[in-house]
């Protein structure tokens, strides 16, 4: 009953409403207040990352003790895996908020921007730390509705159309999730995730489980832009303001999509082989098709958005391999390695994709265009942006010293050891194509010696807050490659893997108390 746990949700909510009330009178207030609140949340999440480790904090909201072993209130649960995702949300959130201090000057009514930003952070924090199924849905709605409005923030034509498509598909996904929650409540008569697992293991009717698992997979898969449901992502992420597309691509599709799928499939359902094969094929599909769609793009943000789909395919692929091995009961250490690769790539992708979108925003801020053909030779006039963009491009395409290489290496090793040779070959192929695509991005944006001298000399570097965020993120990209070192890996990644691979570990502490 650690009293600090609800602070993850209360502080951003209170901040959002304070911004709405006080921001109207004191104009400069909201900019710095948001960054301060998110800095506090980052420190809180790092504090929890270090004290959580193997143990698991359960916070009973409202003080309702479980009645003869059945939990009746809503539980807030913080364990190893949650601590990692919370750190990603709040760290990238703080850097995006700091970045947007100068970026959002171009837009009107900054009050609404910062209030919606805090609400999105509150929603994501609420989804990640909640241990109750319907509570996940409510906080999912908060973060998704505020991201609808933030996508359409600069009310131009294509932004409105992208936000409309995003809303319709998001609403569709919400109703699929609601029907799935209804079906789960219909059979298990309870909403607490650990309790549902206890109720499910008693009876096992094949068709019902497959139907519920498909509903949950398609509902949350649509939020995570997995292959058949990725139609909204390129439009939404390319038309949103850059700090928001950094948050959407870097954090929202992970915290609200991939995290919930992993949490529910490992800790709530009994993993069946057919479902894990389906998940792995969806992962491979989105990995391969995402990168092929990305090759022909000339708009920076659309290129990055398609690459988000293919990188998410990596994560889903490696988690799927882990699930297949667990459902077959084959070598558990290879399954643990595959899941570790997936989570490690999740963390890395949040770092370098956020950085890439911030770079795209910096280029757009100084030149005003996103089209690669009209750029050229920015390396001299924008040294900081080009340096950080080089770091990010190298780490996304998996070049050794940077973090992308290590996580892809772990995924490929796990695939080979699990005897999925085709998947390993595809992973390598996609990594090579990603490298080619990002070399094109670097050459056209920064080093191409076009005759566009007129553009180059009047282009000046972006103001300090944007540079600071980009530099910090590139340092993080380098620092994350240390996670492969056994010492640090034991402290951070292994607790997350234990909570997922060992089914009884998650529910024993919740039901036990």
């Amino acid at each position: 009953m650690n009293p600090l746990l609800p602070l993850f949700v209360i502080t951003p909510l209170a901040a959002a409403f304070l911004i709405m009330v006080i921001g109207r009178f004191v104009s400069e207030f909201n900019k710095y207040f948001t960054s301060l609140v998110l800095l506090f949340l980052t420190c809180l999440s790092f504090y929890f990352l270090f004290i959580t480790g193997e143990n698991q904090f359960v916070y009973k909201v409202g003080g309702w003790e479980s009645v003869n072993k059945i939990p009746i209130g809503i539980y807030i649960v913080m364990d190893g895996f949650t601590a990692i995702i919370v750190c990603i949300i709040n760290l990238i959130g703080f850097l995006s908020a700091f970045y947007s201090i100068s970026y959002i000057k171009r837009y009107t009514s900054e009050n609404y921007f910062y209030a919606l930003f805090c609400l999105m952070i509150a929603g994501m924090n609420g989804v990640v730390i909640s241990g109750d199924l319907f509570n996940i849905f409510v906080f999912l709605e908060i973060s998704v509705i505020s991201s609808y409005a933030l996508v359409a923030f600069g009310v131009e034509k294509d932004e409105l159309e992208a936000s409309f498509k995003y809303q319709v598909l998001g609403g569709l996904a919400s109703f699929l999730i609601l029907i799935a929650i209804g079906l789960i409540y219909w059979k298990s008569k309870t909403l607490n995730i650990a309790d549902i697992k206890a109720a499910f293991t008693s009876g096992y009717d094949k068709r019902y489980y497959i139907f519920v698992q498909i509903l949950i997979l398609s509902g949350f898969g649509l939020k995570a832009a997995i292959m058949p449901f990725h139609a909204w992502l390129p439009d939404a992420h390319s038309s949103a303001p850059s700090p928001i597309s950094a948050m959407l691509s870097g954090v929202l599709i992970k915290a609200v999509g991939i995290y919930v799928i992993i949490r529910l499939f490992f800790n709530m359902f009994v993993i069946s082989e057919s479902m894990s094969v389906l998940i792995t094929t969806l992962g491979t599909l989105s990995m391969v098709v995402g990168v092929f769609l990305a090759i022909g793009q000339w708009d920076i943000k659309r290129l990055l958005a398609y690459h988000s789909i293919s990188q998410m395919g990596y994560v889903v692929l490696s988690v799927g391999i882990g699930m297949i091995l667990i459902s077959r009961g084959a070598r558990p250490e290879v399954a643990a390695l595959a899941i570790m690769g997936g989570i490690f790539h999740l963390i890395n992708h949040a770092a370098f994709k956020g950085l890439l979108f911030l770079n795209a925003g910096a280029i757009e801020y100084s030149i005003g265009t996103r089209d690669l053909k009209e750029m050229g030779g920015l390396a001299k006039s924008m040294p900081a942006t080009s340096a950080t963009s080089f770091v990010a491009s190298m780490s996304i395409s998996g070049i050794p010293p940077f973090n992308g290489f290590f996580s892809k290496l772990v995924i490929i090793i796990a695939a080979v050891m699990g005897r999925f040779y085709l998947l390993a070959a595809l992973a390598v192929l996609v990594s090579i194509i990603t490298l080619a695509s990002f070399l094109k991005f670097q050459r056209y944006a920064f080093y191409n010696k076009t005759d566009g001298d007129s553009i180059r000399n009047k282009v000046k570097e972006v103001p300090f807050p944007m540079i600071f965020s980009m530099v910090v993120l590139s340092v993080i990209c380098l620092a994350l490659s240390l996670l492969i070192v056994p010492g640090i890996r034991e402290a951070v990644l292994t607790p997350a893997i234990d909570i997922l691979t060992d089914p009884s570990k998650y529910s024993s502490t919740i039901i036990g108390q």
Partner: protein
Amino acid sequence: MTLIVKKTTQLISGMIFMYGIYVIIHGHLTPGGGFAGGVIVAGSLILIMLAQGGDFLKLVKEEAGTTIVESLATLMVISIAAAGFLFGTHVFFNNFLPKGIVGQLVSAGVLPLYNIFVGTEVAASIFIIFLSLIIFKEESPQ
């Protein structure tokens, strides 16, 4: 709107408003509660605004005021929930006030306070949604 519509709405909206307040206050005794009562109150406000047709500038000022009311009401809901930290068994969202006798008006501890603040917040929210639609339709080019 014609004079007949103006007069009838003046008469009716007062009653609708009172009924909404009744539903909010008796949330823990009879069906309904913060949400239903809040929406009924918003309905009566929309009725008056539609019939009287306030001029444009008054609408914009009204919207700004309502936004502040809405944010303050939500802040109050969160602060009552967080007040559970300090009193009672020091847990978030705890019902720390005395529970009283079931069935009486002042009985369910913190619940009536939640009802009232959620009711005002829902009423202010729906009124703002409608106001912003009307303001947008008036000020945007045809």
